[in-house]
C-alpha cells in the first residue's frame, strides 16, 4: 500500500531558505540546494518549496534554485508561492516542479484550480490552505495567513476538490509554530470527506506528534514540517524508523 510521507518544507526568499514563526519574524537559515540534497539523503519522501519573495529579482533566484534542486534531487517536488496564473504554473513546471501549489491565487480566482487541472492534470494541482479558528468555525485565511477571507475552510476544501485539486495541504495557523502537535480536529474534519491526498501542516514539535497524526487521522497521507527539520531537532531518518517501529508504513530508502 501507499506509504505515509514525511515532507520538509522550504520557504525560499531571495534564494535562501527561511522559517518564520506564526507568520512573523522571518530569518535566514540555509542554502536551499544544500538542504534539499541533505533531506533527500535523509529519506524525505517529497520536498515542498514556497517562494516567499516579493521582488522580480527574487523570483529569478527562486527558479534558479528550483532548477538546481531538480537537477540532483529525484523525488517529487511541490512548488508554491505567488502562483496566480497558468503562466506561473508553466514557469515552475519547466524548472522541474512536479506539483504546483496554489493558495491566495486560487482564493482570488478559483478557476485557477480548474484551469491548472485541465492543462496539467489534477495530480499536478495542490490546493494549499491556511486555516484559523474564528468564532468557533474554521476560517480560510489569505496572504500568508494575514487576511481573514470570511470563507469557511472546510467548505473551501470541498470546493477545491470539486474544481480539480489533486491534493490538499492543510496548514493550521493556530498550531503553526507552537510545536504542540498537528491540528488533529481540523485534519479529521477534512479527511472525513476528502477523496484526494491530504498533507498535514503546522504544529509538529517532536516525533510523537507525527505518530499522533497518523494514528488519530488514519486517512492523512503526509506530515509536513519545517523548523524541526531545519534546526535538526528531528532527523528524518530517525523519525521514519520510529514511525515504522510503531507500525506506520514508511518508504524505506536503504535496504
Amino acid at each position: 500500500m501507499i506509504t505515509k510521507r514525511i515532507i520538509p518544507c522550504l520557504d525560499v526568499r531571495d534564494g535562501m531558505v527561511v522559517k518564520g514563526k506564526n507568520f512573523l519574524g522571518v530569518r535566514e537559515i540555509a542554502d536551499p540546494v544544500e538542504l534539499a540534497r541533505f533531506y533527500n539523503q535523509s529519506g524525505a519522501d517529497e520536498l515542498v518549496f514556497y517562494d516567499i519573495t516579493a521582488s522580480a529579482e527574487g523570483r529569478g533566484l527562486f527558479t534558479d534554485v528550483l532548477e538546481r534542486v531538480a537537477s540532483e534531487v529525484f523525488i517529487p517536488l511541490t512548488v508554491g508561492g505567488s502562483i496566480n496564473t497558468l503562466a506561473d504554473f508553466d514557469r515552475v513546471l519547466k524548472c522541474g516542479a512536479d506539483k504546483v501549489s496554489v493558495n491566495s491565487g486560487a482564493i482570488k480566482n478559483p478557476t485557477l484550480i480548474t484551469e491548472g487541472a485541465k492543462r496539467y492534470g489534477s495530480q499536478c494541482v495542490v490546493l494549499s490552505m491556511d486555516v484559523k479558528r474564528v468564532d468557533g468555525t474554521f476560517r480560510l485565511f489569505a496572504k500568508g495567513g494575514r487576511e481573514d477571507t470570511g470563507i469557511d475552510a472546510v467548505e473551501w476544501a470541498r470546493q477545491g476538490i470539486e474544481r480539480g485539486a489533486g491534493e490538499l495541504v492543510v496548514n493550521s495557523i493556530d498550531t503553526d509554530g507552537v510545536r504542540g502537535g498537528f491540528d488533529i480536529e481540523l485534519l479529521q474534519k477534512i479527511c472525513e470527506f476528502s477523496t484526494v491526498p491530504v498533507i498535514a501542516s503546522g504544529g509538529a514539535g517532536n516525533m510523537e506528534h507525527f505518530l499522533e497524526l497518523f494514528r488519530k487521522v488514519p486517512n492523512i497521507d503526509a506530515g509536513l514540517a519545517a523548523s524541526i527539520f531545519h534546526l535538526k531537532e528531528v532527523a528524518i531518518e530517525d523519525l521514519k524508523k520510529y514511525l515504522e517501529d510503531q507500525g506506520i508504513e514508511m518508504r524505506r530508502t536503504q535496504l
Partner: protein
Amino acid sequence: MIAIVDYGVGNLFSLCASLKKIGAEAIVTRDVEQLEKADKIILPGVGAFGDAIDKLYETGLVPHLLRMAQEGKPFMGICLGMQLLFERSFEFGEKEGLGLIKGNVCDLSADIPQSLKVPHMGWNKLEIRAKDEPLLKYVKEGESVYYVHSFYAKDCEESIKAGSEYHVFVPGVVRNGNVCGTQFHPEKSGETGLNILRAFAEA
C-alpha cells in the same frame, strides 16, 4: 546514447536530469535518424491515453518505433509511455495502443474500494516477481517507487516482472523481450529509480 521520444507530452526535465545524473547520454528527439542511431529508446508520457497516442501518431514516428522495437532495440515506456505499449486502453472510450505487450489498460477505480484514493499517488513498495528482470538488477524487494496514475495494466500476467499492492496488484515493471516499461516514475523514485534507469542504460 538513449533517445527520449519527443511527441509533445509531459515534462522531460527530471527524466533528462536523472539520466545525466547517472552518466547516461541522452537526447530528446522526434527525428527518425536520431532514433535510429540511438542504442536505446525511452517513450515518456503523462496525461490521457487517447490524447497521447494521437499525438504520437501525428509525429509519424509510430511505424518507425514499431520497427525498431521489433528489430530488438531496447525500448522502455515510462508511466503513460508504458501504457501505450499495450494493445488497448479504456480511458475515455476504447483506444488502440502500440500492441508491443499483450494486455489492456483499465480504470483502477472500477477494481478497488471507494475508500482508496484514485489516482494511485505516492510511494509504494515493489514486490519482485521475476528475480532475473534486468531493470531490477540493482533493486531489492520492498524498495519503494513513486506512482501517479488512475489507469493500470491488466490481462498481462506473463509480462509482469514487479508491481505494488493497492487492493489489486498494480503492474509496476513489465517486459516482453526487449520492450519494457514502468508504471511508476523512475526519475522521481529516488535512488531506487536512478538504479532502474542505470540498469536500463547499461543493459
